């Protein structure tokens, strides 16, 4: 399974499925990470974590461990 944590900087991809607890899914869904949503990995924080993504036209930051719950194409 390929997740958001494996995406390269500058790469665009599509969300396939969310994993994890219901609470975790709800939080990610409310931020726009739903099946079929386009995401781009913009950059990493200076210490390599968290990540900065563009999703639904805005900038979202996620920790690597949480990004691993988002399965992508």
């Amino acid at each position, binding site marked *: 399974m390929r997740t958001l944590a494996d995406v390269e900087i500058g790469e665009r991809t599509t969300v396939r499925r969310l994993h994890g607890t219901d*609470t975790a899914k709800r939080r990610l869904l409310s931020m726009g990470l739903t099946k079929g949503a386009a995401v781009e990995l913009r950059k990493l924080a200076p210490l390599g974590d968290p990540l900065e993504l563009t999703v639904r036209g*805005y900038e*979202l930051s996620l920790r690597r461990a949480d990004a691993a719950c988002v399965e992508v194409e």
Partner: protein
Amino acid sequence: MSKEISIALAGNPNSGKSTLFNALTGARQSVGNWPGVTVEKKTGRLKADTSCQVVDLPGIYSLAAGSVDEIVARDYLVSGEPAVILNIVDGSNLERNLYLTTQLCELGLPVVIAVNMMDVVKRTGDEIDLERLASELSCPVLPISALLGEGLDALTTTLLQGVRGELPLPRPRVFSAPIEEVLAEIENLIRPHVRSVPGERSRLIALFEGDEHEKERLNLPGSTLSAIEKLIADLETRIDDDAVSLIGQERYQAIQNLLAGSRLEHGRGQMTLSDRIDQVVTNRILALPIFAAVMFLVYYLSVSTVGGWWTDWANDGLFGDGFFFLGRGREAYDEQVEEFELAEMSVEAFEEEAAAADLEAETATGLVAEVILYNDSGVEKERVAVSHDDYLAALDVEEPDPAAFGPWVPGVPVLVEQALEAGHVSGWLHDLVLDGIVAGVGAVLGFVPQMLVLFFFLALLEACGYMARIAFVMDRIFRSFGLSGTSFIPMLVSTGCAVPGIMAARTIESERDRRLTVATTPFMPCSAKLPVIALIAGALFDDAWWVAPSAYFAGIGAILVSGIILKKFRAFAGDAAPFVLELPSYRLPRPGDVLRSMLERAWSFIKRAGSIILLAQVFVWFTTSYGWADGAVRAVEQDQSFLAVLGSAVSWIFAPLGWGHWQAVVATITGLIAKENVVGTFGTLYGGFSEVSEAGWEIWANMRVHFTTLSAYSFLLFNLLCLPCFAAIGAIRREMNSARWTLFAIAYQTGLAYAVSLIFYQLGAMFSGTGSIPGTVTALVLLAGLLYLLLRPNPNRRLLPAAARS
């Protein structure tokens, strides 16, 4: 009680909600907390109709994800209190903002949608089909720019229509057929158990999503719950996706449909100015230096310079003897004061010398005395010879009157004292007012200037979007200690003073991180602890260079250790949801909003923390200046006071730390008013001095009698880490918004201080060969307990799916 008409203002963080709130309500606002939580509650009166109350809900992305903010907002919306929901959405970030809108439309309340930042939308060339939004959702949709104040009149008119009940209810979003069928079946199942309530459809969906909070609220019988769960499980297998994801996906699909007539692609993929700024500010190489520079600037301006000057003025001028208006005449006056002090010392030295030689000072023409001047660390600076002529000249030097040097404004205590004397007020009342109340009010207000400057910068950092970047840049470092990246600011500020530091925790997003930061940030050595460090370093360690840095290491160490220990407890485990952080576009803040935020925070400190500080101040003043003498309560010397009696009674508690004598205990208690009081109290109790220099070198020799190096350092450790001064406790109370949490924080701090000091003293004694077996054993047991808490695995670790863990 007649019910007030309320408008609930809901919207995403960074959608311009505060600006709109300020614009709608003007100055008629009050700030408090939602009951029992650290979340701020703001209410205000609508400018256009002051009988309407506007309630500013916390900024949220969703009504159903389970954070404290979301629960507070949801509880209020379904409470039946609000008549209308005003939903502000950011027009430049419509897609995600409308997610909350789809949820708000299911609550069975009229919704008015204000699409904000229309100026930005127009500038980027986007087009929003507002009519389609309005007709699809069946609620009024109005374009506004809260920043420029555009569209607010029309918005107010529509809101008042809603208040009068003239608006249609929004048409809730229809989900796909399989989901709607299950929702209908759930409705049939719960129908017998609940009365028809507003927000019913919203509750059905929450049940469908398996929302635990909603299940609790509805209090359904177990059989109904399991029937609902079975319905959902069946659907999930049929569609091969889970209920939560299904609802989320369909909401976003609905939003795509709402936006079918809008053109938002314009400018996407291109670099905006904000993107370009961010490329530099959160750049992998530049981010940390820029962060350090910003922090230095904030600290330098609010603690070292501007804020510091103001605070000194408030403490020494306004609530001290007085001050020179605009500082004019200060230098000349200070010179005169120095001259006067030297003259006083000369007179004293000469008269002593004369007495020793059995001569009359007035006639001892041949005698020469000597005055020795010391610097702050007790090192001899200068010797001045005093001849008979010098003596006579010194007798004539009069105490300078500040009023003669410039526009002198007497301080509040001076004025109050004059008033009290003019009114012939009795002695004890005079003392109560002056030493108890005025000193207490001074202690509260003395913090305000520094806070104003700090809060100004915090509001600026928040409003322009940099605060989110601080969280982004620092997250990696702080999360291992259970803290947020934004916890850095409270800790930095606390090296100056813990009170504004604690108040700065307001900027931390999650409640859990906020509580943890508030509970641990007072460990940082603040500027008032520096004289205590200097006293111990000077008296027992020969001013060794390492004492002060070691105190900072102890403070920072205590914060990090506490973070690791406490985050493993359930109460601090927080919500299990992932950390998500929006990085909003950089914006120029509105000066009015920044100033208002600054004033609000300062005022809430005065109001909520002030009372506790004042009470504590009066209490300690009374117990130190009064005692039981000759069968009655009387004003007594400090060593006869109630506090001294109390100190003696509890001093045994501190014997295992190596300083079980009452003077040290009393000094620790007076240190609760302000930590630097420890030095002054030692001056009185060990030397009989009414006043000592900042590091108290006059009493160093006497202290060596009472302390060993081990017990002195243990005393220092305890005083650095134990419960902070009353002002900080007041601030903790204000921020925790709960007596229980406040007590927990100070009990934890004191407990840790006790354990650390005991371990240090007893193990130190063991290594130096003076230890006792019970002492060593206790220390080892405590150390083992501390290490266990520190190293045990986190029982609340969120379970990641197997695939993600690999």
